[in-house]
């Protein structure tokens, strides 16, 4: 039965009645409907708020954990750097101190030699003979015995002897001085040597001082890490993000290298593995090629760990030195074996490509196919070299990989924190939207039952207006009563 037939033959009236009936029903169930909407909204909003709060809490916890991890990593790194600096300083001191007695002996020898030479220069030659006084006495004779020829001759002889003697003494003196000068000159070399030695010592001390300053800086950094200061955290964050992106770029480049390597050996692997089998839709041969590359990477990783460049596996890192050396040798031998396998596969690939080309040529031209000219061996040599060298190059990916793993933990953590905060904000927004949406729904509901509501409102208004009219009168009565009571009192 349709609504238009409520009152037979009166469709409009039937519709009006139906609408009025509907409005009345909506009006009577209005409080319950509003309550239901409120309850549902409240439930959803509470759930969203709870979720949002839990996300914020998780973000906070994660942030704290991130900070701890970051500082711990920073501490480890600082420890490693400090350790390296101490080792460097130790070796420097050991080297210099080992040489120091020799330098000291050398300096002492030089000093002794110079002292000897100085002593040699301080030796004074014999003074002039004392017969000059005798000459003076004889000279006085000249005054008393004038015109005495004998005296004159004697004096002349003395004079000549004196001159010759003086000349001889002067020559001796000059020779002596010259000798002293040459001794002093020869001591210049010792001075220079001494200066050089002292200069070397000074240089070493300067170097030591620089190392000490570096260590001071490292220690200060380490202290900051231990104290967990904001500065240290900021520095670590910046450093971590940079390291993460650098290592990511290097890993991507290495990925391309691995891809080239894969293509080099995928075809010849079909000669070794059953080409008619598949795993998860991929040929076993191609999977085997990928496995070989992964094995090379793993062995390379172990080798880098064994020689102490990376610290990804504590078991290897804390091995005894002898065992670790043996392990390193084993790894490099395996890696070289795999390199040889790859070179062999690259050789095989070239043969297969040539065979395929010959077959195609035969199928196209039949027996009249031209005999292929002897191909250049350069591509084959190039492929074999690539096959041998690429695994060795890929081995070095262990370094950025370690960096990626260490820094990725923090970068991923930070990303998660941001996502959690964003989600929490979104959930809050949704809860606000739900609240407003419920209010709007209530208003829309009220529009559908506006008639009864309006009537109800009018009815509600009437007693209120009569009450409002009576209110001043009642107040006046009250006021009179109060006045009467006051007067009576």
């Amino acid at each position: 039965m349709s609504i238009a037939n409520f009152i037979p033959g009166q469709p409009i009236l039937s519709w009006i009645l139906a609408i009025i009936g509907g409005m009345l029903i909506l009006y009577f169930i209005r409080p319950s409907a509003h309550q239901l909407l409120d309850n549902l909204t409240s439930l959803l909003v509470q759930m969203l708020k709870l979720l949002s709060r839990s996300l914020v809490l998780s973000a906070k916890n994660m942030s704290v954990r991130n900070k701890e991890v970051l500082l711990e990593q920073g501490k480890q790194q600082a420890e490693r750097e400090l350790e390296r600096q101490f080792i460097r300083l130790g070796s420097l001191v050991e080297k210099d101190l080992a040489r120091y007695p020799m330098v000291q002996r050398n300096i002492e020898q030089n000093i002794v030699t110079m002292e000897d030479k100085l002593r040699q220069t301080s030796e004074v030659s014999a003074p002039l003979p004392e017969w000059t006084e005798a000459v003076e006495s004889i000279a006085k004779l000249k005054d008393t015995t004038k015109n005495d020829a004998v005296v004159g001759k004697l004096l002349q002889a003395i004079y000549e002897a004196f001159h010759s003697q003086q000349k001889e003494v002067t020559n001796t003196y000059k020779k002596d001085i010259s000798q002293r000068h040459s001794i002093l000159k020869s001591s210049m070399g010792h001075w220079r040597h001494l200066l050089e030695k002292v200069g070397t010592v000074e240089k070493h001390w300067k170097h030591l001082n620089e190392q000490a300053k570096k260590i001071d800086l490292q220690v200060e950094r380490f202290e900051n890490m231990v104290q967990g200061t904001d500065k240290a955290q900021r520095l670590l964050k910046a450093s971590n993000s940079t390291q993460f992106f650098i290592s990511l770029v290097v890993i991507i480049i290495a990925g391309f290298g691995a891809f080239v390597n894969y293509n080099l050996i995928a075809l010849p692997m079909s000669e070794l593995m059953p080409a008619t089998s598949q795993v998860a839709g991929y040929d076993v041969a191609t999977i085997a090629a990928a496995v070989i590359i992964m094995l090379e990477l793993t062995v390379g990783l172990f080798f880098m760990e064994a020689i102490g460049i990376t610290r990804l596996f504590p078991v290897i890192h804390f091995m005894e030195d002898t065992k670790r050396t043996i392990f390193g040798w084993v790894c490099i031998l395996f890696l070289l074996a795999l390199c040889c396998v790859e070179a062999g596969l690259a050789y095989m690939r070239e043969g297969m490509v040539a065979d395929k080309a010959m077959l195609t040529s035969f199928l196209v031209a039949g027996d009249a196919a031209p005999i292929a000219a002897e191909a250049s061996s350069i591509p084959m040599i190039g492929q074999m070299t690539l096959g041998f060298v690429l695994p060795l190059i890929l081995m070095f990916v262990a370094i950025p990989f370690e960096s990626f793993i260490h820094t990725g933990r923090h970068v991923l953590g930070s990303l998660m924190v941001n996502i959690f905060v964003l989600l929490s904000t979104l959930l809050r927004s949704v809860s606000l939207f739900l609240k407003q949406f419920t209010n709007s729904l209530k208003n829309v509901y009220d529009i559908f039952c506006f008639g009864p509501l309006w009537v109800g409102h009018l009815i509600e208004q009437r007693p209120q207006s009569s009450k409002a009219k009576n209110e001043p009168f009642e107040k006046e009565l009250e006021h009179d009563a109060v006045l009467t009571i006051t007067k009576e009192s």
Partner: protein
Amino acid sequence: MTYLINSFKFSILAMLILITSACTEQKPSTGLYILLDTSGTYTAELKKAQQIIHYYLANLGPGDSFAVARIDSGSFSEKDIVAKVTFDHRPSRANEQKRQFATTISEFIRTVKSSAYTDINGGLLLASEYLNETQASKKVVMIFSDMQEELPKGFVRDFSLNLANYQVVALNATKLRSDNLDPKKYMARMDKWQQRIEESGGTWRVINDLEREDSLAL
């Protein structure tokens, strides 16, 4: 305790090996059977068929099966199979097989003699038997013929074929002189074959332009 841990490790390893071996599956292979019409003047077209065979030889890979048979007066006979091969899983060996196959086909085309009749249904039955044996995941029968069946006296070919999951392709279905006079004959002939193949569960296709590589793709 150590024993338990070792046992646990070993069982994990064993499980991994089992899972890996269970995951290994056979690569989908293709089975191709080409029927060559050697009746009447159609033998002149066989050079084209050789090119088609070479094309498929170049494209089929390890694990695929390939056979070429002739359609003559009575084609339901193993003697009519010119060459058949399932390519080895090693590409080098497969290439060698392809060379031998191509040589056999070349020899056949050089020495083929025309037959008086054309037993296409017999050839189709033989093809379906062969391809069922190969267990190829994709089965294709190509009929290099004008599709005009002519049977000798006494030959009955009203059997039902089971060609479910088969692709049947008519290659180079040339028009006969009578088709030129009345093209309806040609269309009726083609419709009849299409109906027969589709009733047998297979799909039907006609390729007349052999230069288009994409239409030849399996």
